[in-house]
């Protein structure tokens, strides 16, 4: 078990390096660089070259990568050109904001998605499962950009909720936490609704499969109430595919959503990464991508562990016997 764990962790580290390296290289290959923006404005080519030198953009790709890697080994991930701050400080700050959003969305999605999935999956037909399914499909076929915009539009029309942002400029009566929660509703719904739909679909499918299995039929025939089987026995068995994606979902959520964060002005990792991408802030891109990779690696690990708990048959540690 320890060995397995260590190996997975080592791989996670490798993944982070590989992904941030790839991002750095790709960012350099994309046309233009951080100083291009100022070209053709008030800056002469000479000043431009000086600026380039200052940011280390005049180095060859190989050189730049080597220097970055060497620094990264000392946990120095370079300076963001745009913010003039170390990437190491910037990323955790934004990642924390994204984590708040991710957590809220996850709780929301789980509390709504799983029960609905059980309801729709345990019955073959009927009005309620049909409606649940239709709603899920609507949510899944809406682009996140449109969902976020629509929620903002509703917030603006009703005037109930703030339109984007994370905190009010002045802490309103009721305290900072209440303020944060009010700001959280729209982005969390924008991230959480499609997620709830996804969980509902997965859970429903797994549920309907389990319901058809012999052990359920057998329990039913022993006279155990159907609802009890659905909510106790089958539920656990049906968690398997959900558990398989759950960690992944957490990882993806933590690496931030571009569309939702930008539209709702949530100062998270996705927002930061998009900014970095746009301005070719290569070290920041590498940092953001690395952070995303880290979360995802942890997420997959979590998923595998959860799977082992829910379904001991698939226990990873047993695989080590070979």
């Amino acid at each position, binding site marked *: 078990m320890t060995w397995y764990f260590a190996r997975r962790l080592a791989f996670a580290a*490798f993944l982070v390096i590989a992904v941030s390296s790839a991002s750095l290289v790709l960012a350099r290959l994309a046309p233009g660089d951080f100083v291009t923006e100022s070209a053709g404005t008030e800056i002469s080519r000479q000043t431009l070259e000086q600026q380039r030198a200052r940011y280390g953009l005049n180095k060859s790709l190989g050189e730049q990568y080597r220097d970055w890697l060497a620094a990264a080994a000392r946990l120095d991930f370079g300076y963001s050109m745009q913010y003039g701050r170390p990437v190491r400080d910037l990323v955790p700050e934004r990642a924390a904001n994204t984590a708040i959003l991710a957590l809220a969305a996850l709780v929301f999605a789980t509390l709504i998605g799983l029960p609905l999935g059980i309801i729709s999956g345990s019955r073959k037909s009927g009005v309620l499962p049909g409606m649940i399914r239709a709603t899920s499909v609507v949510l899944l076929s809406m682009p996140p950009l449109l969902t976020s*915009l629509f929620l903002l539009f509703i917030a603006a029309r009703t005037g109930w909720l703030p339109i984007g942002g994370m905190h009010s400029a002045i802490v309103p009566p009721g305290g900072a936490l209440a303020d944060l929660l009010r700001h959280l509703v729209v982005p969390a719904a924008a991230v959480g609704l499609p997620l709830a739909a996804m969980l509902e679909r997965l859970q429903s499918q797994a549920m309907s499969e389990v319901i058809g299995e012999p052990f359920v039929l057998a329990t039913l025939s022993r006279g155990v109430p159907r609802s009890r089987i659905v909510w106790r026995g089958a539920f656990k068995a049906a968690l398997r595919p959900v558990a398989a994606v759950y960690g992944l979902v957490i990882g993806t959520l933590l690496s931030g959503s571009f569309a939702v964060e930008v539209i709702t002005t949530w100062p998270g990792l996705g927002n930061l990464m998009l900014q970095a991408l746009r301005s070719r802030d290569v070290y920041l891109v590498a940092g953001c991508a690395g952070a995303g990779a880290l979360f995802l690696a942890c997420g997959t690990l979590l998923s595998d562990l959860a799977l082992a708990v829910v379904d001991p048959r698939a226990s990873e540690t047993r695989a080590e016997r070979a």
Partner: protein
Amino acid sequence: MSRTLGLVLVTFALLAAVAAPVLAPHATDAHFGGLLNAPPTVVHFADASGGWHAPFIYRWRLVSQLEQRYEEDLSTRVRLAWFSGGHVVQSSDEGAAPLLLLGADSYGRDVFTRLLFGARTSLGLAVTAALGALLIGATLGGLAGFAGGVFDDVLMRAADFVMVLPAIYVALALRAVLPLVLTASEVFGLLASIFAIVGAPFVARGVRAIVRSERRLDYAVAAEALGASDARLLFRHLLPSARGFMAVQMTLLIPAFIVAEATLSYVGLGFPDPIASWGTMLHDASSNIRVFADFPWLLSPAAAMFLVVLGVNLVLQNRRSEDVRHIGVRHTQRL
């Protein structure tokens, strides 16, 4: 019953896509200068004074150009022209009063026409890419789950790598190395490959988990004991148990790919412009917040997407529950 509905929806979508040139009243790039964001033309049967006529429409008259407000010009009835000029239905006065069943977009192009032609592009791309992702994902996931050990590890970590790589960067880098102008078929091939590769890991992870746990079930052990070859065991016995999962994945991937096409068009990897696609239509629509209050017809690709995904969902889901029972029975019999 619901499966029938699903089949109807899917068939309907396919029919619309195939018959687009005949069903659509206009060409995808035909635009009507004075009708930017014009609302759908309503087909009337009765005029203002209550007199009944063969189906007709009224011309839209521009009330405010800057605000794009229109009103019906009740002075002249414009008849519909059926089965003329290779189209099922058009207005008899296409120049002044085009038939805009779903209104016009911000360039004054017929949304209905673009929706039909867009079905070809978007559905074709999404289905191709989803099938590709399923094929790659199921094969690799199945092999990984079946073989286990180092092979499993390497494949799964490779899948993780693909999943966390910022796809938008890959697209930007590709944009940089590819020629600036790509033909529609090149774009199609490119996008389908990207989507298939990006989508495959999600499928692979699930399939692997299922194969892995199924493998230890009695029927699999028994089959192995009875001398079934590895390939037979994997493809005949284990993978079919992931069918349900794959069906759901299909219903998740198709809408995701339709939407993703719009995102890639944002970095310059989209279809060249006169070619309509649902993703780009929605992307264009969401650039203006007025769409919800004033131009809801621009969201019709979302509605169309919903119907198609619902259809696919209903067909796959119900077919699967029959399969599950069938497989269950088969397994029991083998024991």
